[in-house]
Structures are given as structure tokens and as C-alpha cells.
């Protein structure tokens, strides 16, 4: 691990300002992903700004009937919150499907959104990777690609975003609240927050230098049957091959986002009108333009079957 200086932030505004002022600065909160990558020298911050002391660890009601989730709310606390379990069950379910108990106790809401891909070529510093070393190439294309993305990919990168939580937030139409080094704040719809790889897979979100996530807001409860179904190689503590987050209303309409298939939580609102025609029609619409490899072509079939299972589940529970 490279040496770094360390400070404890005293306010969100000061943290954002310091992040812009000090070269090579990074925020650190749960540390479960950043510290791991620092050990491998994939991340080499010169300065760490510890934001754990900022009072961003509360879940509060908003004026429009939704919730404001502080950036530092731990995954365990978010999943266990009574309001989340009751009104946003898909979020509890997604969080509980991810990581291990130990990791969820440390991992934060903001950090979960900002976690990096688990592409093995990103982790192997002996391999080319456009995300780790822009311009070096992509070893996953033509390599072992069973885990990789099938939609929204580029010639530069076929990595997936590993978060389960983000898939649920995408279904819930959440928004990411931030503060910038100049003290201004903004609200970023979750749909716009993560980027597709394009030619710059190293740039994963629309955050600007120094911009700090302060909260994630949820609109008022969407109702419906809320289901998160994750398919993985082990029954627990594994990243998704494919996951489906769904809110299905009594009239059969619904919203669906997918995990494990793209560089970001994958949702195509225009495809959701085809839900009434069943899993096959919806899958064809939501994965329109997909490009699979011989190793990950199974994901298209798995998406269709998982959605079919989710629709049956929603009907059974209704």
C-alpha cells in the first residue's frame, strides 16, 4: 500500500473543499472496497479524508412523503429500518442479498453506490484494463467473460457494476444528493448517476472532482409487490450473475431493473409497457441491443427465466 496522509473531516462542505484542494485526495467511509483496492495498489490515494464523523447517518422523512437516507447509514441499518422494511421492501431485500454481515455493518449507502467493479482483470495488475489503466486495453473481451456485462457495453469495457442496492434504488427512482467544493448542492436522479463505459470506463459516475454524496432520497412509497431476486454461484455471499429488482402493481404493470448485466443498474422504462405480454417479450425489449460472448450468453436466458419467476412470485403474493 502506498503511504498517505489522513484527516478527519469536520463538515461536508469542508470535506468537499479539502478533496479538491489536496492532490490525490479521496473520501473514506466504510473502507470495505477502497482499502481492499489500496492494498492491491489499484487505488493509490495520497490523502484520505475520513468522513465517518460527519452526522450523515440518519434516515429522515421528507416533505413529499419520502425518505432521506444519510450517506453514512450503514447497509445493515438501512436494511433493518422499520420504514424501509415496510414501504421500500425491495431495498431491504437487495441490501440483505449483498455481501456478508460483517461487510454490511461497515459499508455505507454512498460507498455502496461508488464501489468498483469486481472484474478479475480490473483486479489483476498484470493484465490490461481500460478502467484501471486507461488506454491499456480490455483483457475481459476475448478472455474469461462469464461474469461480464451483456448490455450497454463498449469496445473498451464489459465490466459490471456489482451493487445490489443500486438496482433497488433504480427501481425506486431514488436521487443522489451531493455537495460540491464551492458549497453548492445538487440532486442527481439515480438513472443519470452511473455512466456507461463508452471510451472512458474509468469515469464511472457523473460526480465532479471533490463532490461528496450527502444523502440518497426516496420518493413516496410506490406500493405494489416488491421483489429482489438474485441468482449467483453460491447461496450466500457472492456477486450476482443476474439479479432482478421488481415492483409489480395489482394491475400487472410494473418497474424492473437488472443487476449483473451492465456497467450500471439496467432499467429501460420504455420496455416496461411490454411486461403485460410476459417475461419473454419484456426481456427482448429490456435487453435490446445486447452483445454477449460465448461465455456469458446464458445471462440472456437467465434474465428471462428470473423475470418469469419474479412475475409468478408477484402473482402468488398478491
Amino acid at each position: 500500500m502506498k503511504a498517505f496522509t489522513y484527516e478527519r473531516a469536520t463538515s461536508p462542505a469542508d470535506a468537499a473543499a479539502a478533496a479538491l484542494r489536496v492532490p490525490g485526495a479521496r473520501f473514506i467511509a466504510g473502507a470495505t472496497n477502497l482499502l481492499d483496492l489500496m492494498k492491491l495498489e489499484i487505488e493509490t490515494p495520497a490523502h484520505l479524508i475520513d468522513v465517518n464523523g460527519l452526522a450523515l447517518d440518519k434516515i429522515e422523512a421528507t416533505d413529499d412523503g419520502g425518505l432521506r437516507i444519510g450517506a453514512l447509514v450503514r447497509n445493515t441499518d438501512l436494511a433493518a429500518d422499520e420504514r424501509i422494511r415496510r414501504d421500500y421492501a425491495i431495498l431491504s431485500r437487495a441490501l440483505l442479498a449483498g455481501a456478508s454481515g460483517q461487510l454490511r455493518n461497515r459499508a455505507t449507502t454512498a460507498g455502496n453506490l461508488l464501489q468498483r467493479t469486481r472484474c478479475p482483470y480490473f483486479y489483476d495488475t498484470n493484465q490490461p484494463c481500460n478502467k484501471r489503466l486507461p488506454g491499456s486495453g480490455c483483457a475481459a473481451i476475448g478472455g474469461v467473460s462469464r461474469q461480464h456485462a451483456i448490455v450497454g457495453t463498449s469496445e473498451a469495457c464489459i465490466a459490471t457494476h456489482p451493487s445490489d442496492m443500486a438496482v433497488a434504488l433504480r427501481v425506486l427512482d431514488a436521487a443522489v444528493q451531493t455537495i460540491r467544493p464551492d458549497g453548492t448542492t445538487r440532486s442527481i436522479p439515480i438513472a443519470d448517476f452511473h455512466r456507461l463505459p463508452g471510451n472512458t470506463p474509468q469515469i464511472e459516475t457523473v460526480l465532479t472532482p471533490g463532490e461528496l454524496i450527502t444523502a440518497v432520497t426516496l420518493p413516496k412509497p410506490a406500493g405494489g409487490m416488491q421483489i429482489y431476486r438474485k441468482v449467483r454461484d453460491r447461496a450466500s455471499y457472492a456477486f450476482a450473475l443476474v439479479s432482478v429488482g421488481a415492483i409489480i402493481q395489482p394491475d400487472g404493470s410494473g418497474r424492473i431493473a437488472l443487476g449483473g448485466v451492465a456497467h450500471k443498474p439496467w432499467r429501460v422504462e420504455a420496455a416496461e409497457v411490454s411486461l403485460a405480454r410476459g417475461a419473454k417479450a419484456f426481456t427482448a425489449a429490456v435487453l435490446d441491443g445486447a452483445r454477449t460472448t460465448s461465455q456469458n450468453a446464458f445471462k440472456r436466458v437467465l434474465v428471462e427465466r428470473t423475470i418469469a419467476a419474479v412475475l409468478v412470485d408477484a402473482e402468488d403474493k398478491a
Partner: protein
Amino acid sequence: MHENDGTFTFTRREILKAGATCAAVAVAPGVAAKSAGAAAPKPPVMAKVSFTVNGTRRELDVDTRTTLLDALRENLKLTGTKKGCDHGQCGACTVIAGGRRINSCLTLAVMHEGDRITTIEGLGTPQQLHPMQAAFVKHDGYQCGYCTPGQVCSAVAVLEEIKAGIPSHVSADLSARPQVNESELRERMSGNLCRCGAYSNIVEAILDVDGSRA
């Protein structure tokens, strides 16, 4: 090596230390060559931190890179907490910080100013085992023992989490109080790997402590 003539008696720790020394010697030329070329590596940055470990206040001056795990093992010589993968995948380093089980390898010591940390040494002693330790012995919840301190710390915290009403992936109803049963324990303990495969006996031990199985 003459292990049986009484001249050489090694503990496993001493052998590991000797190995580490040899490794350091072996890489030295590479380090020298590197520093002659590129810019010299930055010197370590030291920082002070104080936290309570097993009820005792400890003050440390550590390299900022020091993980909580290394601070416990190397600085405080509390070697009960084990380093397995050092990447948060195996759970051997599990300790309880602020009442919550965490991977001590994936957190920096300097991030724990003022925290209260409990390690395996703080749960029980050889003379007075914690009930969870006694249950692991009774149910044969280990073979080589390397993952055991992490398993025990995790298991103690798991029962607290269930008592606090924290749901899990296998809880059928998010609004109901979670139960202590085999499927809940297997799910909740999935962050603690045991390569010897003592899982079923670990579950038996935890059920015994909970009293849900006689």
C-alpha cells in the same frame, strides 16, 4: 532439521517469523534497484489513535496504513484475531467494534478513535470460556482452529443481531421478528469461511448457546 533431538523446538509463530525474514532479504536487491531509478518512495506517515480494546484503553502511534487487524496483532500483540485473506473474504479477522462484528482487515486503525473493540481475547479466557467458546468445544466446531476466533466473534454478534430484530436474506417475512434456526445461522455466518468444513457443528454450537436446541 533435527526436530527430535531436543536442540531445535520451534513454535509455528517462530517458523513464520523466520520465513518472513528470509523473504525480506530476498527482495532487498529489487528495492535497492528501484530506489536508484525512480523517485524514492514516500516515507510512512504516522498518526496517533486511541481506542478501548477488551476494556483497556490503548494509545498507539501507527503508520496510517495500519489496518485495525495489524494494530491488534502487531502493535498490541493480541494474536487471537487471525489474518486469513486480508481482503474481507474469509472472516478470520472478525472482531466486534461498537457492538457490531466487522472485518478488522478492511478498516484502518486510525478510523477507530474512541471506539470500543472486543476481540476473542476479550470474550473469554482458557479458565473461563465464553459460552460460545465452550459450545464450539462441546460440538467440535473446528478442526485446525485458524478461523475459530473469527467464527466465535461472529457467532456472538449474530445472536445479538437476531435479538435486535435485524432481518436476513432468508427471513421470509421482513416485518416479523427473525428466528434463530439453522437456515438463518447459515446465511448470517456466510462471511466466515472454514476450509476444514466444520460448518454443521458450528451451527449446532450456536443453536446450543441460544438454547433453541437442547
